[in-house]
């Protein structure tokens, strides 16, 4: 049958990482079993303080071969306590990808057999939550030089949510227009969508009771 990485192998690899990063100050890690009913995936979920984030990232990159930064999410929690109003969630993956070796000038592709991966070749998902205290310009250390995939993710997080990244070179608007006013970050909770709380549309979906002003209007 088809081969997949077994859950127990992933659990062992995840345990190695959890034990290693729990040694850092300000980092608490555990294994969470994420599942959608068919296969459990043992994920490393860690909580880190903003000060220890940089050393945690360097440790993961150098000691545990975490080579892929998947996504960086910024969340604004206005109802939480003072020291947890902003949150950055990092999703990292250890893919176990190596450059294929070449013999006599011909490159041999690396075909990984998923049922026999062990140790540092095991793919592991890692999720890190960093809680940031409330301020007008929340910020966290940038990891742009460790994983280049984090570059545009950080730009997008600053663009839409407003969380700044210390040490990030070339921060600019990527999704919103370049002329957007400084300080406008739409995914913060104080900005509402258009027609927020506008119930009239649903009460009269077909417009039977539309006001006479709309007759003859083109739009």
């Amino acid at each position: 049958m088809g081969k997949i990485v077994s859950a127990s192998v992933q659990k062992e690899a995840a345990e190695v990482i959890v034990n290693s990063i729990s040694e850092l100050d300000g980092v608490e890690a555990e294994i969470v079993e994420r599942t959608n009913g068919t296969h459990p995936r043992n994920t490393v979920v860690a909580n880190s303080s903003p000060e220890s984030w940089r050393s945690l990232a360097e440790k993961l990159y150098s000691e545990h071969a975490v080579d892929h930064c998947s996504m960086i999410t910024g969340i604004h929690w206005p109802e939480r306590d003072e020291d947890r109003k902003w949150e950055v969630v990092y999703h990292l993956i250890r893919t176990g990808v190596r450059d294929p070796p070449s013999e006599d000038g011909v490159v041999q592709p690396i075909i990984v057999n998923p049922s026999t991966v062990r140790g540092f070749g095991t793919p592991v998902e890692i999720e890190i939550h960093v809680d940031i205290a409330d301020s007008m310009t929340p910020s966290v250390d940038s990891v742009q030089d460790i994983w280049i995939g984090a570059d545009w993710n950080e730009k997008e997080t600053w663009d839409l949510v407003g969380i700044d990244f210390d040490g990030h070179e070339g921060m600019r608007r990527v999704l919103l227009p370049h002329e957007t006013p400084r300080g406008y970050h739409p995914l913060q909770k104080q900005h509402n969508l258009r027609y927020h709380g506008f119930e009239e549309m649903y009460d009269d979906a077909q417009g039977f009771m539309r006001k006479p002003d709309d007759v003859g209007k083109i739009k």
Partner: protein
Amino acid sequence: MAEMWISMGPQHPMTHGLWTLKVKVDGETVVDTEPDLGYIHRGVEKICEARDFTQITTYCDRLCYASANTWSHSYIYAAEDLLEVEVPERAEYIRLIAIEIQRIASHLMWLGAYGPDIGNLSIMVWCLREREMMMDLLQELGGSRMHYNFPRIGGVKRDLPYGFAQRARAKLKLFLNRIQEYEALYDESTIFLVRSQGVGYAKPEEMVNHGVTGPNLRAGGVNYDVRWAHPYSVYSELDWSAPVERSSIKGADCYDRYRVRIEEMRVSASLALQALDKIPGGADTHYEPEDPMILAKAPSRAPEGTSGAHHFEDSRGESMFYIAGGGEGRGKQPYRVSIRSPIFITIPFAAKCMIGYKVADIPAIMGSFDPCIGETDR
């Protein structure tokens, strides 16, 4: 020499979508590039905070419109992780059939659009002819030619129609023959070989550090695939292996990326055929919608503090949804939906790959990475 910035602006027949690529050229050689995205930024992440969990599926179809099924399933798996729902096995098989046929259709669209970039205009109508065949199959399953809104939290919206298995087998077998026609058209064309080989090298470790996954990575000679690395659905029950290309010492070039997608179409077709044979309950039985064989009951509220995350193998790479629960309506709406688009991360990397080549190589390199701007701009 005189250097100048050329803007390949939003409206451009080559760019496969609406974005600007500013290119700094020194004569004919590309010296620097700067991509400019955001022309169709619709704020989907913000809109999803005001929608119920079942309403978000329609938005996810429209993220990458060339492969709509893969994106709505990517969201559904994350929502099922959040709401802790178990999906019946027959529904997983039906989803797999829909996803793999959609992957074929997406790669066909890429193949058809890549030809005109290189100069081969006839391949466009040939590939669209096959894509119509795949879209007919998906229309039987989902109800519309694009944007099917097919999966539901806990299963699928309806079962395989009567006679679907027969038609799907016939069409997929015909398609497996037709792939040879495309290979013949491309591989026997000297112009295509000269324009795509030796152009746009990228090495796997560099690609992974930049965040590039999927067929672009597998063209470099490593078979990392989310379907076996972070397993989901019933891929473990079927016999398949992720296609890999032998690259050169300098890395994967455009020709390798083209070949890996041709092989992926073959693998997807074989997966769909196997799933039709192995589906529990048989491919010819038809259960009514909301039968527990194809749809499990799912809660509609996610309490605060819960979260769901899922990595998914999309036609262009690894896509991911992260959903934080506990939003409006006492948890009926999510607090934050965050979407990872593979092409958003691949485009700066592809722009870097172009440096050092000629202006005429820009369409070849950009097209070979398969950009689809709908998912980039969310």
